[in-house]
């Protein structure tokens, strides 16, 4: 048990200690377990471990890859069952500290589940704790699917404030951005949730979202129409953040408004508070074919979500913090999307803001979106 480092959650070291003690255990035997007959427990150690693990993650041993990650039961009963199982394992950790090797992976999974269950809000974590949770998630994915992902916990860089500009006269309505976004951010294929919407609007009617069509399917650009994209605008004064009862969503220092999927309780207050239809709630467990999963992930971005949490555009935090453009910007064949650092006076986004006639939606609300529109 690690009590010397000041974690904000309680953790056990069932699986890990064992590795360092190279297979031998407290009772002195180097293989085959400690033997149960002399033990004060009614169950043998192996049986106890087996029972505890079965209660905790038993199902997962028979399910494969995808289901394991996403089919996390969220109802109270199974959550409670899991919790007690975790406690059971915790209680039995000492007495079962040496068991057959085949149980190691299950134990490690249980250990990870335990630590993940009691981890704190990402927003309040130290860098070390952030790294730890990311490592756990990567390891968990590896244990469950046998595949590797890379997950970053990279923080906001100093002197960076992200901003976006959208050229209404250039957008042709191709929706290549929507495609790229779905693939980049591992969005659920079944429910066809999409962070970006492209609105087809009639010329001469202004920006009339009520009469616009955001689900057209015909050759584009259509005669007498123009196109306008919306997504989360990463408001500098975001009302969605204000209303969250558990602070599961917040504004990062580089201006990105993010969600901790593990802290979100799915109340959807933020969705109601957003004046721009920027947030998406996942009603079903997100499913992505294994071959299409984007393995380059960020904790606050495109990592695998569970069912019943809020998602939204993060300006592709996994890309933007590494210096890349968001997937939508890269995919747009017309160059209608411009992204960059608002604090860099030489950046292209700054040139656009200073030299084009830019405007934002519902500017009077004081939400200060960092997403500007302009025309040629």
């Amino acid at each position, binding site marked *: 048990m690690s009590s010397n480092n000041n974690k904000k959650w309680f953790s056990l070291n069932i699986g890990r200690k064992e590795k360092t003690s190279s297979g031998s255990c407290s009772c002195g035997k180097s293989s085959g377990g400690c033997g149960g007959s002399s033990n004060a427990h009614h169950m043998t150690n192996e049986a106890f471990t087996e029972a505890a693990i079965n209660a905790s993650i038993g199902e997962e041993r028979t399910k494969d890859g995808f289901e394991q990650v996403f089919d996390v039961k969220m109802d109270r009963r199974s959550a409670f069952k899991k919790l007690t199982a975790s406690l059971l394992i915790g209680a039995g950790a000492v007495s079962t500290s040496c068991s057959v090797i085949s149980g190691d992976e299950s134990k490690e999974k249980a250990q990870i589940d335990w630590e993940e269950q009691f981890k704190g809000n990402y927003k309040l974590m130290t860098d070390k704790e952030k790294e730890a949770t990311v490592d756990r998630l990567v390891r968990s994915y590896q244990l469950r699917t046998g595949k590797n992902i890379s997950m970053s916990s990279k923080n906001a*860089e100093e*002197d960076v404030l992200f901003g976006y500009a959208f050229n209404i006269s250039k957008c042709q309505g191709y929706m290549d951005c929507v495609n790229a976004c779905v693939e980049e951010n591992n969005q659920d294929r079944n429910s066809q949730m999409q962070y970006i919407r492209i609105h087809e609007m009639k010329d001469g009617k202004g920006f009339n979202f009520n009469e616009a069509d*955001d*689900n057209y399917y015909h050759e584009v*650009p259509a005669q007498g129409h123009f196109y306008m994209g919306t997504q989360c605008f990463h408001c500098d004064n975001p009302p969605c953040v204000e209303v969250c009862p558990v602070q599961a969503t917040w504004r990062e220092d580089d201006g990105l408004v993010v969600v901790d999927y593990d802290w979100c309780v799915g109340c959807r207050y933020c969705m109601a508070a957003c004046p721009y239809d920027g947030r998406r709630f996942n009603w079903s467990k997100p499913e992505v074919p294994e071959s299409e999963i984007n393995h380059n992930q960020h904790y606050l971005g495109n990592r695998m979500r569970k069912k019943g949490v809020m998602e939204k555009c993060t300006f592709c935090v996994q890309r933007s913090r590494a210096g890349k453009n968001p997937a939508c910007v890269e995919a747009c064949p*017309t160059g209608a999307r411009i992204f960059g650092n608002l604090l860099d006076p030489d950046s292209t986004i*700054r040139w*656009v803001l200073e030299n*084009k006639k830019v405007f934002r939606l519902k500017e009077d609300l004081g939400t200060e979106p960092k997403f500007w529109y302009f025309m040629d």
Partner: protein
Amino acid sequence: MKNNINMMNKIVCFSVFLLAFFSCKHHENEYHSITDKIEAESKDYHGTSISSEAYIGEIQTIEITEGDHTFLIPERKSQIKSYACTECHSKPLSQMKSKDIQKAHWDIKMDHANENTMNCVTCHNPDNIDDLRSLTGHTIDFNTSYNLCNQCHTKQFEDWKGGAHGKRIGGWAPPRASMTCVNCHDPHKPHFESRWPARFNTQKVKERE
């Protein structure tokens, strides 16, 4: 009387103090708008450690300076399949027009302005086919062909230099690399084709039913 004046002085002094106190109710780092904030916070901008260099990848680039802007654009000549043109065009263009010479460039169909305004030699140099030529007869290198386009498309050129027109290569961070005109527009047929959207959301249709 003297006392009164003293009193008045005190009151005036106090109210000036009050005024000064309440009029700066904005804390530091709190701004009226995002534009104020951007302006204030970028005053002492010293650059970041983030670079987009790695994402430019295999693309060969050249650095250009136009007005206040210096940035990279893709190198062009190595991308043209049959450059140098003189490998085929051994004679001046006027002589190539005769019937007994093999027909080439059959796939090029001009759809750029009208015949009154443009033909091949509006851009290509008939005397030295390896180069382009400005309207006034100056030589323009294939690598900097944007200098041809900007003769007519001045507004687009301004926007392109600043970064409002065209597409970035790599990422948002420095160094800036941008596509040049011919990377997106076929110079012989510069408009974008109409086509079908990349996807259709069947679930939204269901929701509406």
